[in-house]
């Protein structure tokens, strides 16, 4: 089984070389094949044949093959950049470096490394080594203070997924097919027609199909599996909620505060303050507002209006909304800060020209201000996502502790609950790896899709 994967890699390696090079030499085909095999062999070498031993399931094989494919692909990308360099082709096509003349250090090649070493050493000790340890841990059953740990291969991962390997392959393929189908339709249709409108709608659904495919791939629990599907769903809902609320709210407030009003600078300063608050304090604040016994909001509603506000922690919708409100409010100041700075770069000439042309306030906002803010929006999208993924633990821990019945337990909350509070290091590590992969995937996706639409001005 393992050999089969390596053979496939040996065949696909040259195919990759053929696709990315003009008339490659036989030597390059050979190197491509060898590098692909080596890249594919990295994970089996590190983990042994555990995924193919007796008693392993199709899902284990699938994960092993995926990792082999990933290893082969990454090593081929590196190889290709070496080929490009040998051919004199610039692999880096971004506008920045092209304009800057490259130079060297007079003292020798080691000077830049020496200058970089403080940063590199810190990165290696505090980032890369722990990251590698996390990967190792994720394949183990391990606890703090235990006399031993047990290698469990991929089981920390497989128990998060559904048990049918064919479905696991089919769902992502279907999602990819949907995306490419929508893209194909988009290319075939011309602007302004009904067909284009349909294609636009189809593109949105194609994007959603990725989330739906992932939803179907995570296990709903039972039969010794971990119920990770609800966690995934909570994470999507709460993350999207926080990012949408934080960014739309941030832009709206910044747009209002940017106008010339008396004491504007005071408002603008005050608006940024929530950012200085820690996620834990944000949790405590909103807990104090909405708590059914001691909450200010519930008290006011009850005594002034006679409305009995339900306990937000016993209703899934209210609980998620309160987490979104608290976390979104905390990041609001940060978004306002960046949008205020961004608004100052919007060309007033263009706005005035539009005004003279008779564009309404809404049209000016949508057609001129929004596009001008796109680099800031893109930057904020990435930072807000990272915030919503990684920094909501304390807020949730203070407000709901995952209540009701895990409906506000997002990925990072689960990681800490399982890995730290329950001391299950292996499962915690496996879930961290999953979150790590998710963030990388989303960021790459953003750079590919949203990134294309960002204009940085200039020619």
């Amino acid at each position, binding site marked *: 089984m393992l050999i089969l994967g390596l053979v496939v890699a040996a065949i696909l390696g040259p195919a990759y070389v053929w696709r990315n090079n003009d008339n490659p030499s036989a030597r390059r085909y050979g190197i491509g094949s060898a590098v692909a095999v080596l890249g594919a062999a990295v994970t089996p070498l590190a983990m042994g044949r555990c995924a193919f031993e007796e008693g392993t399931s199709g899902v284990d094989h699938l994960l092993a093959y995926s990792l082999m494919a990933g290893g082969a692909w990454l090593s081929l990308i590196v190889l290709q950049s070496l080929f490009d360099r040998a051919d004199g082709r610039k692999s880096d096509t971004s506008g920045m470096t092209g304009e800057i003349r490259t130079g060297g250090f007079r003292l020798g090649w080691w000077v830049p490394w020496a200058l970089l070493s403080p940063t590199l050493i810190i990165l290696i000790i505090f980032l890369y080594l722990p990251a590698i340890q996390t990967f190792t841990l994720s394949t183990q059953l*391990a*606890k703090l203070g235990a006399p031993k740990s047990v290698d469990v291969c991929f089981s920390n991962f497989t128990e998060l997924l559904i048990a049918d390997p064919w479905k696991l392959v089919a769902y992502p393929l279907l999602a990819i097919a949907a995306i490419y189908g929508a893209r194909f339709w988009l290319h075939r249709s011309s602007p302004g027609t009904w067909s284009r409108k349909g294609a636009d709608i189809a593109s949105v659904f194609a994007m959603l199909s990725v989330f739906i495919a992932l939803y179907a791939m995570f296990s709903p629990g*039972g039969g010794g599996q971990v119920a990770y599907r609800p966690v995934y769903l909570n994470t999507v809902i709460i993350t999207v909620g926080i990012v949408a609320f934080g960014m739309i709210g941030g832009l709206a407030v910044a747009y209002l505060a940017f106008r010339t009003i008396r004491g504007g600078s005071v408002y603008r300063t005050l608006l940024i303050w929530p950012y200085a608050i820690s996620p834990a304090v944000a949790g405590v604040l909103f807990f104090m507002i909405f708590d059914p016994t001691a909450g200010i909001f519930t008290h006011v509603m009850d005594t002034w209006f006679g409305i009995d506000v339900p306990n937000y922690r016993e209703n899934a919708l209210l609980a998620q909304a309160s987490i979104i409100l608290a976390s979104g409010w905390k990041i609001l100041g940060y978004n306002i800060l960046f949008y205020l700075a961004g608004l100052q770069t919007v060309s007033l000439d263009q706005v005035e020209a539009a005004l003279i042309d008779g564009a309404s306030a809404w049209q000016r906002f949508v057609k001129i201000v929004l596009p001008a803010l796109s680099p800031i929006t893109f930057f904020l999208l990435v930072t807000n996502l990272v915030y919503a993924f990684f920094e909501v633990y304390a807020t949730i821990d203070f407000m709901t502790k995952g*209540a009701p019945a895990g409906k506000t337990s997002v990925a990072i909350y689960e990681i800490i609950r399982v890995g730290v509070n*329950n001391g299950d290091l292996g499962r915690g590590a496996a879930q961290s790896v999953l979150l790590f992969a998710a963030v990388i995937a989303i960021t790459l996706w953003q750079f590919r899709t949203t990134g294309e639409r960002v204009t940085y001005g200039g020619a």
Partner: protein
Amino acid sequence: MRYLVLLAVVVLVAAACSSDDSGSDTTAAGDETTTTAAASDETTTTAAASDETTTTAAASGDATTIDFWVAFSDEARLGFSEEKAAEFNAKHPEYNVQVTSFASYNDVFDAAVLAVDSGEPPGLIHFFEAATRQALDAVGADGNPIFKSVTDAIAGRTEILGEPVVLDSVVDAARNYYTVDGSFYSMPWNTSSTVMFSNMDILNEAGITEPPATWADVETACAAIMALPDAPSGCITWPNHSWFVEQSLGQQGELLGNNDNGRSARATEVNLESDGMLAYLDWWKGLDDSGYYTYSGLQRDWDGTTAAYFATEVAMIVTSSSDVTLIDEGALGAGFTNVTSFMPYNGDVDYVGNLIGGATIWMLDGMDQTTEDGALAFLNFFSNPENAAAWHQLTGYIPITQDAVDLLESQGWYEESPNSKVASDQLAAAENTPASLGALLGNFVGIRDVITIAIEDILVNDVDVATRMAAANEEANKSLSEYELLFGG
């Protein structure tokens, strides 16, 4: 600036790698820093702790340092520990007991294990009852147990550095719980049981003269209370914490783990589907369904439930006796009569007994004789009759030794504060059986989490008790068998 950071890193690494003995003052600071780096979620508490280090270290020049890591961060209980450490240091100037505060028991334990591996362990740590098995099983990187039996270390001495040994005077309920393989491993400290507090003003108004004793009595009382024209929004509450479930199992004589609750041999199976378990959860869910039970909506919510009682949103609360003093004062402030009574039990089966909860102080292995004697002297000083009595009066945790009980009786404390005696009486009324002793389980923290989540599901989502507990049982047994695979030898 970067070079400074680099330098700091190099120093840190050097400090972490050095294998000096833990006694000297020079490494004490390094000890603090390495733990901070290791237990990353501890930033705030350890930041506070390093302040402490400077204040207490200043007082002593060449004194032997004994680090005492405490899982309390509130002023009253942490303050008590610091005060007693200072008194001990003044009495024994050759020692310097340094108290460091942590946010939770788990944080203390994780930090201690990491500190052992980095070669700079504390002397004493504060760790809770449910993790007794975990503490006994814990080993360092070298494969040796982290903790040393306090009984073995005392080795039959009746006094250490002039401090009389109080271990023999520990009350039975705590002694029996913490005695594993025939000896005390750790020194009991904060020990409590679950008791009920009743707002007698509301109960009397509803025509109930005595706090309800059995489950059926609670239902009768609740029906009367909720029928009042100015009825509170709920009748009774208690935190959704596995401890209450364990108490109920003890009352009904039901075992949680096999092999006599893990007391005759290691528990290898856990039973979350026993009749007692289902009876208790059915009763709990029934109270919730009829609107008698108020769920705060948060797991392990000690503060919210107590706040609801103070705000007279409920007429009764079942909670830890460690809050007797707090609740007595709160009820006085809120202006109602508060009476403490035993935790309600199932009247349909014979009452077997309630168990303790709380924590003990564990001594780490590997200290030199001088340091270890200092640690042992401190432990016995810390729970001497005066201190144990003061601790009881401050909080409501039971007086941990018989000598402390006698002292309190001679002072007339119980006539003055009858509510304080209920927990001790309840524990004394328990039979000495494995069920009422409570379980010793591996991965108990994780299993408790499984139970708590299942109960929240039952209360909030109205799912069937037996079905939900079957799923929880499967999960808990998986968790336990994995633990036994790692620790079971």
